[in-house]
Each structure stands twice: as C-alpha cells, then as structure tokens.
C-alpha cells in the first residue's frame, strides 16, 4: 500500500457547551486514511460528527467553544496539520486541500462576482495578477460546465441558480488543483436531477485532475455511486469502514445494517414490519452524554451485557478481503452466533 495522502488518527474534537453543563464530544477518536486519487465516503446521520471531522482537518473549528484535543493527529503528506503555524496552514488551505460546503446559496460572498471569488484562491496562493486570474476563472467555469463562461464570470451569485452556484463553488475549490477535496454534503441542498449532475461532475473532475475526494453525506445512494471506500460514523466515532461494494454486500455493524434497511428499494420491497420502511428505533444520544460501552447499544437489536459495559474496538471483519480493509466496531464479530433476529 502506498503512503496515504491524508491520515487522521484518533481525532478528538470537543466543544465546551455554553452553560458549562458539559463537554460535547462531537468527534471522539476518529481514525481513517485517504489514499491519493481515491474517494472516501463518510456517512452518518445529522450530529454524528461528519462535518466537525471535515472542519477539523482544515482547522476551521471555531475556538472557543471547540478545540481539538492533544493526541489527535491529522497528517497530510506526512505533515501534522495540527502543529502547523497559521501561515503554513493557510498555504495548504485552498491550495492542497480544498473544501466545498453544503449550502451553495450562502457559501458565496454576495457582493463579489463569481469570477472574483474563483480567482481569489489563485491570487492568494499563486500570486497571479488579476487579469491572469480572471482568465483562469473563466477556464474553471468552463471546466465545471457553465455555459457562456465569459459572460458568467461577471455575474453575482444571486443571478445564478443553486446548481450553478454549486458548480461555482467546485470551481473555486479546484482552481489551485488541490490534492484533496473535502465535499461536505455537496448535493444535499440541491434537487435530485441537479444532484446527479453535480456528482457526475465531481467524478469527472476527479478523474481529470487525479485528486482524492472526501465525500461527506448522509445519503447512502450518493456514496454507493461515487465512493471507493466508505466510513460509517455514529456518535462521534467510525463504526464501520469498508470498500463500498463490501459494505453494501455485507454490512456488519448493526447500525450500518439498519441504515441500509432504511433505504427504500425498488428491487426488494421490505417484507418485515408489515410493508413499512424500516427505521432504527430511538434517537441519536446527545454528544454531551454518550452512552457507556458501545454507543449504539441502546438502539441495537442485538445488544447484550458486554455491549453496555465495554466499548468495542475496531475489529477486522476478515471475509476474504485484505486484512484491515473492512473493520467494524462491534462485539458481534467476536460472537457471531448472537446475530439472530431479535424477538
């Protein structure tokens, strides 16, 4: 295996809550790697720590109330981003690692033309003149598939539709040809047809530019279509990590299993629960008070004493794949016989 582009090890990002009532352990011991050129999907429901993880990588967590705990490691090409000076960090942001945000409506500055905004990263990082940067902005608009780029470059964000703005955001992020693109729910705010276009665009650009993508989403369909590998997050932790095909074929964590069962399928109508779509019982616990033991145990149909007492480590699922490629944070792996449909 080659040297990973990004290695996150035991990332812990905590927030001290307003009233001093406790510490929200939003991200609590997350580890994963991103290889050059691959797409890693990060899946989980709202509040599981996906966005905090991605913001932590660029150190964009508002401090206070947030902080990244000592002992966390975020290595990009072997350099620990957590110990960099602000200046060195700024040289990486937007240049080597770029990010696109969920809301294309609000992620663009309303008072500048889209051309200015695309050009900005090139001016900041490559010291281009305004004229050259403008040409570059036009090229980027063309690259992300916007018609009439020469005219559109002078338009303001409010003159564009949501899908076009997201294309502009992608153009902004890619102007310096980053090695890693973090896409935080890039399609959530868009309607379905535009979603498909944007994902196709990302796939195409990834292939053309050879960058790695961290695709953060709550939508399993998005992951299935685009990601090489998937990390499933729950309650601030990675609970299962596997190549996409393996994950969908053989989900091992009860949470992943539940998530997949909750997706409406055309080919296999759900038989159980009288034809109703499956849902995982209960709520995501509050980040200030994760349950003891396995964090999923209060909602888990298989949970037994050990799950309540002891937090499971990431265990290797084996199953023919290369060791370490499919890992699951669940005690069931040690006692597979307990995996029986619950009464």
């Amino acid at each position, binding site marked *: 295996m080659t040297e990973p582009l990004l290695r996150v090890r035991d990332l812990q990002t905590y927030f001290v809550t307003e009233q001093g009532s406790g510490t929200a352990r939003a991200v609590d011991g997350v580890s994963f790697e991103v290889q050059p050129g691959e797409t890693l999907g990060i899946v989980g429901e709202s509040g599981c720590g996906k966005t905090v993880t991605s*913001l932590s990588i*660029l150190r*964009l967590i508002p401090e*206070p109330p947030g902080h990244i705990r000592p002992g966390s490691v975020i290595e990009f090409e072997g350099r620990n981003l957590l110990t960099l000076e*602000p*200046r060195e960090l*700024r*040289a*990486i*942001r*937007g*240049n080597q690692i*770029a*990010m696109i*945000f*969920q*809301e294309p409506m*609000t*992620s*663009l*500055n*309303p*008072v*500048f033309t889209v051309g200015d905004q695309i050009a*900005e*990263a090139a001016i*900041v*990082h490559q010291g281009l003149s305004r004229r050259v940067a403008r040409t570059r902005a036009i090229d980027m608009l063309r690259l992300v598939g916007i018609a009439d780029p020469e005219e559109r470059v002078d338009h*303001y964000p*409010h*003159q564009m539709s949501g899908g076009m703005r997201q294309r502009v*955001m992608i153009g*902004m*992020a890619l102007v310096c040809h980053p090695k890693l693109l973090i896409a935080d729910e890039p399609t959530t705010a868009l309607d379905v047809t535009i979603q498909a276009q944007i994902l196709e665009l990302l796939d195409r650009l990834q292939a053309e530019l050879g960058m790695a993508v961290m695709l953060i989403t709550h939508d399993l369909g998005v992951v299935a279509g685009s990601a090489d590998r998937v990390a499933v997050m729950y309650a601030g932790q990675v609970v299962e990590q596997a190549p996409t095909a393996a994950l969908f074929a053989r989900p091992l964590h009860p949470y992943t299993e539940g998530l997949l069962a909750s997706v409406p399928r055309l080919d296999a109508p759900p038989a159980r629960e009288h034809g109703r779509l499956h849902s995982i019982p209960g709520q995501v616990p509050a980040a200030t008070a994760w349950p003891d033991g396995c964090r999923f145990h209060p909602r888990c149909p298989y949970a037994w004493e050990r799950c309540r007492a002891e937090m499971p480590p990431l265990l290797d699922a084996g199953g023919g794949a290369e060791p370490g490629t499919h890992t699951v944070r669940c005690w069931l792996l040690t006692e597979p016989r307990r995996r029986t449909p619950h009464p």
Partner: protein
Amino acid sequence: MSVWTWLTLGGAAVLALAVVAELRRRLQTSARGRRFFRHPTAALGLFVLAFFVTIALAAPVVAPYPPYYQIDIGHPNRPPSAQFLLGTDPFSRDVWSRLVYGARVSLGIGTLAMLVAATVGTAVGAVSGYFRRWVDATLMRLVDVGLAMPRIFVLLMAVALWEHIALWALVLLIGLTGWFGTSRLVRAEVLSLREREFVAAARALGAGAGRVIFRHVLPNAAAPIIVSGALGIGNMMLLEAGLSFLGLGVPSPAPSWGNMIADGWHKMAVAWWSSTFPGLAISLVVMALNAVGDALRDALDPRREAA
C-alpha cells in the same frame, strides 16, 4: 457688482445641475446607478450637495465681498436686496459672502470629522467583532464609556481648554468623539457576517484574517457604514454648528454657519436674515445628505434584484 453676484450664483446652480445630469447619464448604464436615481429625492439631494460644494470650492469667485469685510459700519443689518443678496449682518458684513466662505468650513469640518469617525469606528468594530473574546470585551467597554459621556459636554470641556482652537484639532475632536455608534454598528454586522458560510469558505481557501475582514466581511457591511457615514456628516455639521454657536468652535471672525447664526441671533427681531439663511443652509445640506445616504443604501445593496 450685483450682476456678477447673480451670474456666479446662476453659474453655480447650472454647474451643479450639469454634474447631476452627467452623473445620472453615466450611472444609467449600471443597475446600481439606476437604483440610486430611482430614489425620489436622490437627484435633488445630490443637486443641493453639488451646489454647496461648488460655491465652497469657488468661494473667491462666487462671493461678492471678502468674508471679513465690514461694508458700511454705520448702517448694519441691511435687508436682502439686489446688492446684498442675503442682507448684511450686525457687523455690517455681507451674509451671502460669509455663507459662501462658511460652506468651506462647515462642509469641510463635517466631512473630515466623519471620515475620522468612520475610519476609527469601522476599524474598532471590525477588530472587535472578528476577534471577539478579550479584544471585543476591552474595546466594547471603551465604547460603553464613550457612549455614556455626554458628547457635547466632553467637547465643550476639551474646546474650552484652548483659546482659538485650530481647525484640524476641532476636526479630530469631533471625529474622535463620534465613532462609538459606528463601531457598535460595524461590530454587530461583523459578528453576524463572520458566521456566514462564505467566510468559512474564504478561510478554507486559505485567506488570512486581514483578507477575510477587508475582502469578505467589510464589503458586506459597506451599506450600513456608508449610510451611517452620510448621516454622520450631517450630525458632525450640526455639532460643529452648535459649538460654533456657543462661541467654542470655529473662532470668529472666520465664518462658519454655526457662528454666523450666533452673530445674528440677538438681532433676530430686526434682522432675521443674518441668522436664518445660515440656519437654512445647514438644514438643506443635512437633509440632502440624508437623501443621498438613503439612496446610496438602495443602490449599494446587491441583493436587490437588478433592473
């Protein structure tokens, strides 16, 4: 002499009209310009400002007499006539000439003091709102103190320390006691803007604090700053007028609209003109500034639909 007076007056008015018309023609091509002139009193306000700026700049040409020249000491308080457009004051000086020269002082002090106030206020507000924490706490307590002090008394006290205060010192004094409100306004804007996603996006692009503040945050706060600045000039002018009226601002015999009112007011009953016309000038200019400020706000907000 009187023909020349009328000629220059008319010339100033025509020039002001031409300026407004030319601006209107040029700005007509942009959506912002069209929005500016769609404001009902923008053109009128602009005309008034252009007129007063013109006569202030061309004061030696426009004014028929030197501002200190006492024409006929035996017969002061002459009513407005063809020879003395706005009459003469109790010291037998031509009110129109003094109004013209006074425009230099009053507009100049108002504008410069506002620039001082807006600069300091914007800087303090931006730093305070962007960095928050102890920076914010310290600066805002300072602003609280500034706002808690009655400004006119602070100014009176400070001004009373000087005999014949220099104009630049007056500008600084008025400006440096006038930025507290602006800083609050800017801080509030910055506090809300800094949480916007495009600011996070800019930081994710690798922009530093200075770039984020000056390129992403402040331009979005420009509209309130400009509006408060335009209104601020009026305020500063009123303050200068008040101080000068009390005899503590622009020292006599230099003409400012404030001390012109002071020179005439105890003869109001027999010679209403020497106080009334500078008073009208102040009101006109302040109203014009308000109108232009308002129209600027309409024009500069890019979220308004282009038309």
